[in-house]
């Protein structure tokens, strides 16, 4: 008992001050010190590199500002809707392409090559179609999200173990049962991966559209901070945004990946 306790303690302490952690701490400290030195040096224009204290208090002020949550809510709703519309249409398109070699040969090259093109340039068209409000941002996010989901689902469907499909057939599953009980569970990882990629590009599409033309949302706040030259605030917003974006990405990955490994 005592031995186990000592062992776990040893493991914990070695994990806490292991060489990797030590290097990480050193890197962070060096970066922060360098930043602070640059801020104090006056080499750059004033406020281009604000002091860490200024950024810290700007983050605190931002999080304490009730209106920020309204803008955050607007952007989150836009991204959510974009992910839903783009994701569902991407899923359907991917299922259609994954099922038929013929359709895949006919249409997948278009998706494959259109996928990585810059989507933000469609924004003028989206404004004409869906107006200057949140609609055009959702549309741009959905358009960005459609391609990775469709391609990932189509590729995932082709990689399903044929045995599973034969099992379904031998149970005489109907086509919706095949989709619901065989295809979707077997394609869970490619779908989650597609959603993860889709979330990333939907987020970028929506926020960039907000910086271009809008009067609410996080993108609007960032570009407003730019035009007011409120640099600490802009840094604060970028920091919070990056934490949220990386967190959302990790969350989707965790929901899809680790969860299933534990269960099987």
């Amino acid at each position, binding site marked *: 008992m005592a031995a186990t306790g000592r062992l776990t303690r040893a493991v914990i302490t070695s994990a806490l001050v292991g*060489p*990797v*952690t030590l*290097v*990480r701490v050193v*890197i962070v400290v060096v970066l922060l010190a360098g930043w602070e030195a640059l801020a104090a040096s006056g080499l*750059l224009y004033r406020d*281009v590199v604000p002091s860490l204290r200024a950024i810290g208090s700007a983050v605190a002020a931002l999080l304490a500002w009730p209106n920020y949550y309204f803008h955050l809510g607007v952007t989150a709703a836009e991204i959510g809707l974009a992910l839903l519309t783009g994701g569902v249409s991407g899923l359907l398109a991917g299922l259609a392409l994954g099922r038929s070699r*013929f*359709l*895949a*040969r*006919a*249409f997948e*090259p*278009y998706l494959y*090559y*259109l996928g*990585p*093109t*810059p989507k*933000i*340039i*469609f*924004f*003028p*068209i989206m*404004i*004409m*179609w869906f107006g200057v409000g949140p609609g055009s941002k959702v549309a741009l996010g959905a358009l960005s999200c459609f391609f990775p989901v469709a391609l990932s689902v189509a590729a995932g469907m082709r990689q399903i173990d044929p045995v599973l499909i034969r099992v379904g057939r031998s149970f005489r599953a109907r086509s919706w049962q095949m989709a619901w009980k065989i295809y979707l569970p077997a394609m869970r990882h490619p779908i989650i991966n597609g959603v993860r990629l889709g979330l*990333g590009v939907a*987020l*970028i599409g929506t*926020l*960039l559209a907000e*910086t*271009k033309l809008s009067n609410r949302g996080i*993108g609007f706040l*960032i*570009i407003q*901070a*730019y035009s007011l*030259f409120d*640099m600490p605030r*802009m*840094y604060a917003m*970028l920091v919070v*945004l*990056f934490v949220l*974006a*990386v967190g959302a*990405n990790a969350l989707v990955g965790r929901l899809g990946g680790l969860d299933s490994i534990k269960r099987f």
Partner: protein
Amino acid sequence: MSTRAVSLSRLAPAALGLGALLAVTAVVEFLIRFGFINRFIVPLPSQIAASFERLVLEEHIAHRFVVTFQECLLAALLIAVVGVATGALLHRFDLLRRATETWIAATAAAPTVLMYPLFMVIFGRNATTIVAMAFVAGLPPVILKTIEGLSGTRRVLIDVGRSFNLTQNQMFWKILFPAAMPTIFVGLKLGLIFALINVVGIEFLINFGGLGQLINDLAERYDLAGTYAAICFVILVSVVFFIVIERIERWLRPAD
């Protein structure tokens, strides 16, 4: 007989894809002409095709293409040099790699392009901002793929190098780097794609430079057919760009 069947099985889907594209265009043209779609929202496809001439003659699209291409090229060079060098460095110093690899992967997932207002403050509204943004966006995949490629070198190859008593330098240039080449190219391809997306996107957003600015310009003038034509042109250019990159990648990859 069988060769005919094979060529038919290849041609039929391609024909369907192209046919569907043309059919949709024709249907849209029809719907607009008969007033089902407002022609002040969607211009006639024939008008869009006709305005290509205007883009070439009046909007100097060739010059804009060169401007965008130069920005991409500069960003790509920076990404390749810095990315591969950083990857090699992190591979060489394993502790550093273990400390920073997840951070680099996190920046690859973070929406770095949202930092463009920050870059505008630092560099001004000019080509430097565009190149710097493309550089930042394209760097992580090159670093990660370089590390992956170098670490994935087959044991046998390394042992061969050892048996020849190669110095660390020789080992890198004669064994590790060539072995990692295919993986590094996957990273470079991703980096180049990100660079192109960011160059055009930032040009559009900050209204400066080549093809991206053209779209913004035409949209602000409410030149509908021109805007659609310019977007089609940029999409076409990007698609050609991707196809060329893929061809180069296939050409450089050793036949295995």
